[in-house]
Structures are given as C-alpha cells and as structure tokens.
C-alpha cells in the first residue's frame, strides 16, 4: 500500500494520467469527427454500397487492437511506407491507433440511433421541405443522448485499450506510458497491489469522464 500512495503522489503518475486522458480524448475526438458524419450519412442517405458499408462498419466493432497495433507498427516503422513521419513510439502514433479502433464504434452506434429517428421523423422532415443534408443536424440534436453514448463507448474503448498502444507506443517511461501499459508493467514486476490500485484509479477516471459528459449534455437525464 505504501507503494501505491508513493506512486500516486509522484509526478510520474500525474504524467501517466495526463497522457492517458490526452491520448484517449484526442483519439475519441477524431473518432467522433469521422464516425459521426459517417454514421449519420449511412442512416439518412440511400446510395449504392450502403448496405455492405453498414455491415463492414459493424464488423469492425470487433477489430482486434493488437492487429491494429501491428499493422500501424509496420506502416509507421522507419523502414515502413510512413516511416518518414517519425510517428512510431510517439503519443501521436498512439492517437492514430486508438482513433482507428474507436471510429467504427462511434459510426455504428450513431448509425443505429439515427436510423431509428430517421424511420420515425425522416418523412416529416422531408415533407417540411428540408433536404437530407439539412435534416442531419436536426436528427443529431434529437438524438444527442444516444450520440453521447456513442462517443462515450468510443472513449471507453480507447481509455481501456492496451494491445495497440503497447505495440505502437512502446510503453516508454515518461513519454508513452499510459495507465493501461503501466498496469501491465507493474503486473509483470509482480507489484499486484499497485497494479490493482492503478486499475481502480483508471476506472474512477473513466466514471468521471462519463459523468462530466452527461452533465454537460442538455436534455432529459434518463
């Protein structure tokens, strides 16, 4: 237990928490930026290839993090096609990995929510003279709570993820070490109590982010 408090009070720990939140929130933002329009478009527009695209997006819910990590590793490696960017073993590389994992989650959940709303109100919106493009913001406002859930599901994937960022980030002390990779490391050192303590802190952070997001979203608090 002494280990735990010493760790919590160290500057290193704060840096780890800050990096975890920074990487996860950046990745979630990217995922929302990409997934929200994609999910909404899949619900509202009718175009050739839409059905297969829906199937693909849903299939990607099961994207294995360690495979995403490996593929990104090969791409970002100095001897890989994107090696010039120098993103391997950096926080930016970790953000890309997690954004890839979270985008399908956001897109699939937004699509599901929007599709229900579109079935109920789409006809009315079009009769009112709105184009499909113009209907999307209206639908997003109506469906803001499920959309929030989609974003939080994306965040949940990123904050808890370890397989991809371990490969892409390298778990470098003071630079790419996050809560999850630190927990994995402490477990491997046999510091099980410390690892568990960090795990509880991680869950606490996750709850706090979720609560904050709900508090900031207008609408009935169901």
């Amino acid at each position: 237990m002494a280990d735990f408090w010493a760790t919590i009070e160290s500057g290193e720990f704060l840096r780890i928490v800050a990096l975890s939140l920074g990487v996860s929130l950046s990745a979630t933002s990217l995922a929302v930026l990409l997934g929200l329009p994609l999910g909404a478009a899949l619900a509202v527009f009718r175009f050739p290839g839409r059905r297969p695209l829906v199937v693909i997006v849903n299939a990607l819910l099961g994207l294995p993090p360690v495979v995403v990590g490996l593929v990104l590793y090969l791409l970002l490696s100095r001897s890989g096609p994107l090696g010039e960017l120098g993103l391997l073993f950096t926080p930016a590389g970790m953000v890309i990995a997690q954004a890839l994992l979270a985008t399908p989650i956001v897109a699939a959940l937004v699509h599901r929510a929007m599709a229900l709303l579109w079935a109920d109100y789409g006809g009315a919106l079009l009769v009112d003279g709105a184009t499909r493009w113009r209907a999307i913001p209206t639908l997003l406002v109506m469906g803001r709570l499920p959309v929030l859930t989609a974003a939080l599901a994306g965040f949940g994937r990123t904050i808890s993820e370890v397989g991809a960022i371990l490969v892409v980030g390298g778990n470098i002390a003071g630079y790419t070490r996050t809560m999850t990779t630190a927990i994995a490391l402490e477990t491997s050192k046999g510091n099980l109590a410390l690892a568990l303590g960090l795990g509880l802190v991680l869950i606490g952070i996750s709850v706090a982010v979720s609560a904050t997001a709900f508090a900031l979203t207008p609408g009935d608090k169901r």
Partner: protein
Amino acid sequence: MMKVFRRSVVALLAAELAMAAHGAAAQSIVLASTTSLQDSGLLANILPTFTTATGIEVRVVAQGTGQALATAARGDADLVLVHDPEAEDKFIAEGHGGERRQIAWNDFVIVGPAGDPAKVGGGHDAVAALGSIEKARAPFVSRGDKSGTDALEKRLWRKVGRQPSLAGGDNWYKDIGGGMGAALNAASGMGAYTLSDRGTWLSFANKADLKVLVEGDPALLNRYDVILLDPKTHPNAKLEPARRLRDWLVSAAGQAAIGAYTKQGQKLFNPSAAAPK
C-alpha cells in the same frame, strides 16, 4: 492585410524552425533493450544521470532480446542493449550492428516451489536440474518469446538432449509466450519451476513460495552487451547521441552507476566493461 498575413506566416515558420532546431539540441534517442533491465529498475535508476549530464533523453523500449534486435533491424531504434550472444552475433553478421561492448553481467537462476518436487534444490548444474524436472514431469514455465532468457533455456534443453513441448506430450511444460515478469507470475501462480535472470528475480514482488534452487553454474552466466548500429545499414539512426550513451555506459561514471544499483541491499549487476566476462 495580405502583407500582415504573409508576415505573420513567415514569423510563424521562423518560430517553428527555431523550435525544431531547439528540439534537435534537446535530443532524444530510442534504446531497444530487454525487459530484465527495465523490470529490475536499472535503466530508470541510471539513465537520468546521463540525461542530466548530456541533455539527451533516452526513450527505452523494453522487449525480449529477439524483439529488441528486430526493432533495431527495422530501423526503429538508435542503440541496442541486450543479452543473447548468439542472437547478437547474427544481428552483427547481417550488417545491422557495429561495435559491441559488454557493460555488465550477472547470472541466471532456476527458481521453483519451496516443496521442490524434482529435488533440484542446492544444485549447481543447470542441465542436470532440467533433466530432473523433466523426469519428475514437474511443472516448468518457459518464456517462449525468443528473449535472451528463452534462448538460453532452449540451449540448456538441447544439452539435456530433448526440447519438451506440449505437442510432444509434455503437458508439464508451459510455454507462456511472455516476458520474465509474466513467467514468474505464472510460476508463482502454479507452483512451477522457471529460469530467470537474477535482476528480475530479486526485484520481483510476487514470489509467493518460489525460491532460488539452482545457481552458480558457469552456463548460467548472463552478459549484457551494448551494440552500436552499423552506419551503412542505418544511416537514419541517431548515431552520434547513441554513441555518447554507449560511451557513457562503458565509462567509469556509467560503470559506477551500474555497480551502485542495489535492491534490498543486493547488488543486481556487476559492471564489466573493463574486464568482459
């Protein structure tokens, strides 16, 4: 308006260039190293001294020796610090590595449950001990990750005369495919034997009823080598700051720092740059 805009763009670019130049001064290098040097706490203990003295930040990616060498071979590290002489020979022969220097040594130990079902306790012969474990079909945890420790274990089994495997019906032989810490956790969880480097063992905090049973065999010598990358194969690596770290590790100051690192009063690594083992 356009002029102001253009001027501010130029100013921004200049500022960015200045920052990039500054970034180059405050250098960082990637050191591909082994889990034992990280998990034992050695690198975290000694590297800040080097960074303070030189301004060079060292980013340690700790992997098994096989993976660390592969990382460097792909060009993703600037310097390697590992412990598998055979794999290192190959790395150098393939044109990835240049100069190699030994920085420290310690030894491997065979740890196992205090009950010691294979009766190997107190022995000093690693091959004989593994032979007894095999005969007793006592649980044994193998790293199975091509690390330096794993490579040594495989060499020892070769001397026993047989490589156990699950496919060969050896359900007592558990290939966990993980790092040293994971292997020790598995061994302490199932009361199994395993081969560990002494540094990780001494700093491991979940020993349960595991204890050192076999030690002191010359075959269990564990040497840590630092290898510069070959500038011809890896011209993009940060060779100059990497060389400075190598030079520091083998210098009197670096060697003293390695020798001064203890855990629970025990010295974990013996500096050996001046007199390689």
